[in-house]
Structure formats: structure tokens, C-alpha cells
């Protein structure tokens, strides 16, 4: 048992940290908020060049073939920088779905481009008034000839304006299936809905969109199983992202608490405030090890049916709670747009609500333990 980093792992962290410090200043994060495209060209290019986009993609497709643990290290840095990039939707979820169930043709067509950043894929998953489980998929994919016709509405599709392909979860006669869909195909309309985390998100209407049989990912009726397995690993990285955001939020708050004087002493000398920060640091440090343990287990080929949901449940709540108590320490300025605290505060809650929210994760864990 040891928590030491291998030399290569430390190098990955240092590289991501240095690149983000240089290419992802907070001003860039602010500039990208609500931007319809939302992809900062220079930063995205850097990530592709440094191999960060192909992190999880095997070498044969031009990726780095690294494990989930290394990806978790990078995600902590992405979270710390609040990096406004379509990495999770494209390089994690879409890549994982294709790797898990894609045909050779699908993998050959997209994985290399995902790895070098020249293509962005994004999943179209959630729907209005529907939940985050298998039952939530209602968008209809009706068999027609040797293909399908898609009709329905998707919500909260990140980066849909710049996506080269959508991965659409749809209801077929066989159950749930995944389809690669060109977002510019006839019958598709995209409308941006502003979101709390301020990444570009779209509502997409499908009005009889034609999809060929070759664009289905995997065997008929296997879509949810594929998606579910990829989500269990993907959310471990979002947990890492939450830890990175929480850690930076706390670090900046500690600095402020050491400088800001009230009643003739620094804020940090008041136990009521110091104890908030001590609690937050405990949750962050514990959550970080939980994330690493979850990712390490995934890399060992062990089940993460419990670890994945536990990591996201705990770390997203740790992030949210950290931003709440830090706001108490900053006081009124935390409420202003001028200060950065509000950026963490909004992102923490948005991350907690996205990609399986608290009740959904609780049920996944309970089911793994009790049923």
C-alpha cells in the first residue's frame, strides 16, 4: 500500500499544471462563459499537442493509452483551472463509448481525431421531464428501411454547436441504442440554453432525422449497458475535477483569510472560520484518495459499480460545501461578479447536478449494497 506517484505520473501532473497555468488564466474562463461555441482555440490546441486529449485512447489510434488514474490526476488540474474545454464529452465519454462498443470503422473514423483534437464528439443524453436512468431515454429511433428515424428532444447537450458528431441515446424496439449523428443533418435544430456552470449547452430537436444502420454503436439494445459502464468510469474523473476546483477555492480562501483584517486580526485567527476551512480540507484530502482508489481499481480491472458513484457523490458535495463555507469567509465580495469565488460556487453546484445527480448516485450505491 502506498500513495506515492511514479515518476511518469508526476510528469503528467506537472505538464498539465504548467500548461494550464500558461494557457488557461481565469480571464479566459470568464471570456468563455456563455460563448455559443465555448472552445478556446489556443488552449484546446495545446491540449491536443501535449497528448492530453488522447490520454485514454489506445496508442493504435494515436492516443497515449494511459489509465484512469493518470486521467484523474489531469482532471484535478482541469478542475483547478476551471478549464473551459469539451474534454469530458469528447475525449472521455465519446471516446469510451466508441472504444467499448464501436465498430472498427467507427473507431478508425473518430478516435484519431478525438485524440488530436481535430474533432469534437458530444453525447446527447438527457431529455426534458425525464430522469437520468435508462427509463429516461424516450427519444424515438424508429426502424425505417435499413436505418432509423430519430424524433424527440434532447437537453443539456454540451458543446453541440461545435460538435462534429453527436452520440445520441435513443429508444428503439430493442431497448436503448447509441447512434452517431451528424449535428448538421436535416431535421436537427439546436438552441443554446444558458446554464449555471456557463459552459455552452444546447437543447436539440430531432424531427425525423435519418440515421443509417452503420451509425448504431454496438449491437441492438446494448446502448444503455455501454453508456452505464462508461459513466461509471467517467464520473470518477468528474470527482477528480471537483476536488481540483474545491482545492483551489480553499487555497485562495486561506490566502484571503491570512490577509484580511477584522477586529485587528486576520480572519484566519477566528476559530469559527478556521474550522470551516479545516473541515473543508479534510473532505478534500479524503475525497482525493477516494478518487485515486476508485480510478486505481478501474485500472486493475475491478468493478467500480460502487466506487464510481461514491467518488462522485462525495467529491461533488465536498466541492459544493467548500464553496459555501468559503463564501462565508470572503463575505459580501463572494456575491459579486468581480471576485472569482462565484465562479467556483456556480460550477460546484452545476457539476453536482450533472452527469448523475445526488439522488441517482445514492440509489446506485444503495442498490449495489442492499439488493
Amino acid at each position: 500500500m502506498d500513495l506515492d506517484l511514479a515518476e511518469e505520473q508526476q510528469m503528467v501532473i506537472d505538464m498539465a499544471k504548467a500548461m494550464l497555468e500558461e494557457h488557461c488564466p481565469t480571464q479566459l474562463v470568464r471570456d468563455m462563459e456563455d460563448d455559443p461555441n465555448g472552445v478556446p482555440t489556443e488552449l484546446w490546441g495545446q491540449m491536443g499537442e501535449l497528448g492530453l486529449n488522447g490520454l485514454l485512447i489506445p496508442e493504435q489510434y494515436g492516443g497515449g493509452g494511459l489509465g484512469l488514474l493518470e486521467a484523474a490526476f489531469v482532471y484535478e488540474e482541469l478542475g483547478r483551472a476551471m478549464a473551459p474545454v469539451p474534454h469530458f464529452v469528447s475525449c472521455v465519454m465519446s471516446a469510451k463509448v466508441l472504444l467499448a462498443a464501436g465498430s472498427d470503422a467507427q473507431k478508425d473514423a473518430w478516435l484519431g481525431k478525438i485524440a488530436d483534437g481535430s474533432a469534437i464528439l458530444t453525447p446527447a443524453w438527457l431529455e426534458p421531464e425525464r430522469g437520468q436512468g435508462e427509463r429516461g431515454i424516450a427519444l424515438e429511433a424508429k426502424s425505417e428501411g435499413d436505418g432509423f428515424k430519430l424524433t424527440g428532444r434532447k437537453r443539456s447537450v454540451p458543446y453541440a454547436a461545435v460538435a462534429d458528431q453527436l452520440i445520441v441515446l435513443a429508444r428503439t424496439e430493442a431497448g436503448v441504442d447509441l447512434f452517431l449523428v451528424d449535428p448538421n443533418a436535416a431535421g436537427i435544430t439546436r438552441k443554446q440554453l444558458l446554464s449555471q456552470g456557463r459552459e455552452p449547452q444546447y437543447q436539440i430537436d430531432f424531427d425525423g432525422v435519418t440515421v443509417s444502420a452503420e451509425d448504431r454503436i454496438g449491437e441492438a439494445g446494448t446502448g444503455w449497458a455501454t453508456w452505464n459502464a462508461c459513466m461509471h468510469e467517467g464520473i470518477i474523473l468528474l470527482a477528480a475535477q471537483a476536488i481540483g476546483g474545491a482545492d483551489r477555492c480553499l487555497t485562495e480562501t486561506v490566502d484571503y483569510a491570512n490577509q484580511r483584517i477584522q477586529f485587528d486580526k486576520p480572519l484566519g485567527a477566528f476559530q469559527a472560520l478556521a474550522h470551516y476551512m479545516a473541515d473543508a480540507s479534510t473532505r478534500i484530502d479524503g475525497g482525493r484518495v477516494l478518487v485515486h482508489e476508485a480510478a486505481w481499481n478501474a485500472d486493475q480491472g475491478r468493478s467500480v459499480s460502487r466506487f464510481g458513484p461514491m467518488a462522485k457523490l462525495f467529491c461533488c458535495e465536498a466541492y459544493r460545501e467548500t464553496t459555501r463555507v468559503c463564501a462565508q469567509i470572503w463575505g459580501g465580495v463572494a456575491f459579486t461578479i468581480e471576485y472569482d469565488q462565484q465562479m467556483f460556487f456556480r460550477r460546484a453546484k452545476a457539476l453536482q447536478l450533472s452527469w448523475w445527480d445526488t439522488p441517482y448516485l445514492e440509489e446506485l450505491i444503495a442498490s449495489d449494497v442492499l439488493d
Partner: protein
Amino acid sequence: MDFDFSPEEQKFAEEVENWLVENRDPVVMDHHRENFTQLSDTPERRAFMKKLAAKGWLGMSWPKEFGGQEIEGVYEYILNEALSKHAAPQIGKGVGIIGKTLIRHGNDFLKEKFLPLILDAEVEFAVGYSEPEAGSDAANMQLKADKVEGGWLLNGQKMWTTSAHFADWYWVGARTDPDKPKHDGLSLFLVDMDNPNLEVQSLPTIGKDTTNQVFFDDVFVPDEYLVGKQGKGFQMISEALDLERFTMFTLSPIANRSDVLVDWVKEAKRDDEPLKDDTNVRRTIAHIVTDTAVAKALSTRFVCAAKSGGKPPTIESSQYKLFTTSLSQRVCKDALDIQGHEGTIMEGQDDAPLRGRFEGAYRATMNETVGGGSSEIQKNIIARRHLGLPKNF
């Protein structure tokens, strides 16, 4: 990074586990005693510790020169987790803070007298730091030690000495130099509990066992029973805590309670429906299981920090203690909430759910966030040493 024990550590864990199963004894191993299971306070439990000694499992991390095996402290951690999982007495004060302090600072007389007794499980200790005026402010001990011909005369009072009613020897902090600053005026002594001028008074608690207050009325302690240098008591107390992170607060009892609760929920019914189908129960269980995994992660963190042999894992240990003790109480509270009105049926009665395990545990764990450095003290340590915030008291 590796979250598994090494093959050697794994082998040792299995050996201990098998041995504990073979030596199962309901008189010695009683989960209903909760945290008091760690004490060797009955003849049966002392006999059990003799068996552990015969296995060579006491003082494993000690230097060979003093009868140890010089193996890593993580083996003592594995041993104690296994012992506490089975509600068996644990290796603790003797091979831990007292033995290790004697090895580093004790005179030859004390080493020769006590170290073999510790390794053979022939001696039980009580530790006396707390006093009426020295609670969280541990350095504020007032118990006086006046120099007299051939020794010291101790007068005053100790509080919360859990083992005083059965221990053989008393490891006591006393003020030898009242004119020096409070941290520099303390010394450590070993006092024979049979001393007639020592009076042990039981303090019943809402847990199932008692603790004690101890009164010193001209208790004479010979010179050779002064531990280390005069005036270095507080430094030795702090150092010992840092030396002894591996065996401090075991996670197994909490993990065990979580498991017991989960198993019970799986089978229980309410209004003829399985209790496990209740959404609130399911949410509660999800959080208990998750927080228990975080506690384990925090324990992994301090064990790895301690293993690395660098600076003592004070911060990691404080974070673990802070999180885990509050979780421990939360598990008991949640269990009672799930059991509802039946949860109030007092422990020990067959009609109570789980024979009242959680009714009793709810009371017994109340002290965990206070004893051994309160949660607030842990937060002060984390705030100052980890985050670099100013002194706040």
C-alpha cells in the same frame, strides 16, 4: 500508487484473521462492549493477550535489542485492525507510547524492568495526563511532584483514567518545575497502582464502562521511576503520539457497525414491507457506505504517510480522527433513526433490534469526538499546521 497490501502484509493479515477465527471466544470478543473491547481488563482478556504475546505479536516494531523484530509499523496496524474487527483486546499503550518512550528515553532500570513485562503481556498500564484543569489544554497539568530524599512526592488529581481500576502501573505526567513555562515544567513518572496513597474513584458513564478519577495524597515515587529527563514530559508525550500513529484509532469497529446495519436492513420489515425498499433508508445507507469508504481513504493516507518514515503524519492523523469519529457517531444515530421507536429499547434485551447494539453504541460513541483530542483541537491542528492559518486561541 497501490491500494493493496504487499503480498507479505497480505499473508500476515490472513494469518492473524485465521488465528482469530480459531481462537474465537465470546467472553473475550464481545462487540457490545464497543470501544472498551480494546482493554485487557478481565482475567480472560489478559489470558488472551498472553496468547498474542506467545505468537510474537507484541512489540513487532521494536528494535531487536529490546526483544522486537524491527518490522514496519504497518504490521501493528494490520494486527490492531484485525483485533478490533473481532472485538478482541488490542495492542496499545504498553507496546505503543509507553514501550516506545522507554526505549528512547527510559533509564536502564526502567527498560530492564518493564520492556520484558510488556512483551510477555504481564503488565497493564493506565495513562494519566488529563486533570480537572487540563482537558484540551493538556499542558496545563497541575499534579505536583516535589523533590524529596530519594524520590518525588506526588499530590493532586487525575481525570478520565480509563484503565485505573485494573492497571498495574500508572504512566503519569506531573509538574516538577512550577516556575518554568507550562510546557517545560512537566515530567513523566511510572507509579505503582498498588501505592496505598493513590485513590481510584470510579466515574460511571453513559457508555457501558466506567472511567476513573485518581487522587494522589503524598504518593512517593523513587528517583529511578522518573522517565527520561526532568522537565521533558510534554515533549515526550507529544513525540510518543507521533511515534504511535499506527495503532491509534482503528476503523474496523466503525466498518463493522456499518456492515451490521446493512445486514440488518436487508432483512428487516416494516408494515410488512422490506425496510430496504424505503427511499430514506436507501439514501442513508448510501451515505454511510460512502463516508466509510472516505474514512478508509483517510486511514490509507495516514498509514502511507507513516510508512514513508518522513515527518510524523500529524495532519493526516488529525484529519482521520476528525472525520472518522464523527462518522462513527453518525452511523449510530442513523441506525437508530432507521430503527425508529424500537431503537429506544435498551441494549442487552433480546426483544431489541440487534439486541440493542445501536442503542448502546449511540451512547458509547458519544465520547469519541472528545477523547484523544477533541474534534475542535483536531481542527485547530489542521488549520495551523496544514493550512498555515494563524494561531486562533
